[in-house]
């Protein structure tokens, strides 16, 4: 009998069957992105907000023509923002662009080399956005106190990094993620750092509510196959967490009985 009961993933009042969130950056083309999205079974996909290219062909398809906001939950991000003001501006543009859609992924970066979150600016932006009626999913460091503070501000999900964005280094500090999970009352989603399927499973085995990734899929040799692998990894990790793993032992414990041996 499982010691934990499965609760669906609910973000800002909406229930999701999939606990995997994927990005739409770094794909060869929209078709590959869509194929990966379908293989991943993700229901939420992040997008960036950027200036239109004024010289662009008006008949050229845009991302949202291919990945429909009617079918998927579009999660606009504030990637590229290095202060609260730019992040808030980006979210407001995104809300207008998506007809009043309130769900955003807030990320305020501190430095180009590490892409580590600037926590001070992140807290400031989160306060403004929550007061302005946004449902904020927030990318942050794996600091348990900051995670709690972001929850208290009213963020609908807190998303600590596993490792730097695009690094593929995996979950570098599982103990911090565990501390964050112990105190959390909102979904905790590992955002950034996943490199391969086992990393996603580790995040889920720790008890995370979901995993967000972009590069691990988009930069795989076969992104569509990796998307499928990630789908299964997240599900396996979740089931393993629900099942409750055996305790670690330093020494062996025989699986075959000693009784009845004939030698």
């Amino acid at each position, binding site marked *: 009998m499982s010691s934990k009961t499965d609760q669906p993933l609910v973000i800002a009042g909406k229930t999701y069957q999939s606990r995997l969130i994927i990005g739409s950056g770094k794909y060869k083309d929209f078709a590959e992105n869509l194929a990966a999205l379908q293989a991943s079974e993700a229901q939420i996909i992040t997008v*960036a*907000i950027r*200036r*239109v290219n*004024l010289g662009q062909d008006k008949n050229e398809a*845009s991302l949202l023509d291919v990945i429909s906001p009617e079918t998927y939950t579009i999660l606009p*991000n504030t990637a590229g923002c290095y202060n609260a003001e730019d992040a808030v501006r980006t979210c407001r*543009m995104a809300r*207008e662009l998506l007809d009043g859609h309130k769900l955003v992924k807030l990320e305020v970066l501190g430095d180009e080399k590490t892409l580590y979150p600037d926590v001070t600016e992140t807290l400031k932006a989160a306060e403004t956005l929550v007061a302005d009626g946004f449902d904020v999913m927030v990318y942050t460091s794996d600091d348990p106190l900051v995670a709690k503070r972001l929850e208290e501000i009213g963020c609908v999900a807190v998303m600590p990094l596993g490792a730097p964005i695009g690094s593929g280094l995996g979950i570098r500090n599982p103990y911090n993620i565990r501390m964050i999970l112990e105190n959390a009352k909102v979904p905790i989603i590992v955002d950034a750092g996943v490199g391969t399927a086992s990393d996603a499973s580790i995040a889920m085995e720790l008890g995370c509510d979901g995993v967000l990734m972009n590069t691990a899929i988009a930069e795989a040799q076969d992104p569509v196959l990796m998307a499928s692998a990630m789908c299964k990894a997240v599900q396996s990790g979740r089931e393993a967490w629900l099942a409750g793993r055996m305790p670690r032992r330093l020494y062996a414990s025989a699986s075959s009985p000693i009784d009845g041996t004939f030698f």
Partner: protein
Amino acid sequence: MQITVNGEARPLAGDMTVQALLQTLDLGKGRIAVEHNGEIVPRSEFSTRQLGDGDKIEIVQAIGGG
């Protein structure tokens, strides 16, 4: 009269609304959002919002990102 659109200077012949500018730029139908001097212009105001000399316009769309 001159305005700045997405960081590029553009001369304007005369009075123009946001909607007329978008049509000139062939952006009339796309899923975009517009900022006028740092303030969001709701879609419902595209046809009435007048542009003035020195105005700054930002036009954005959703693109791939993680």
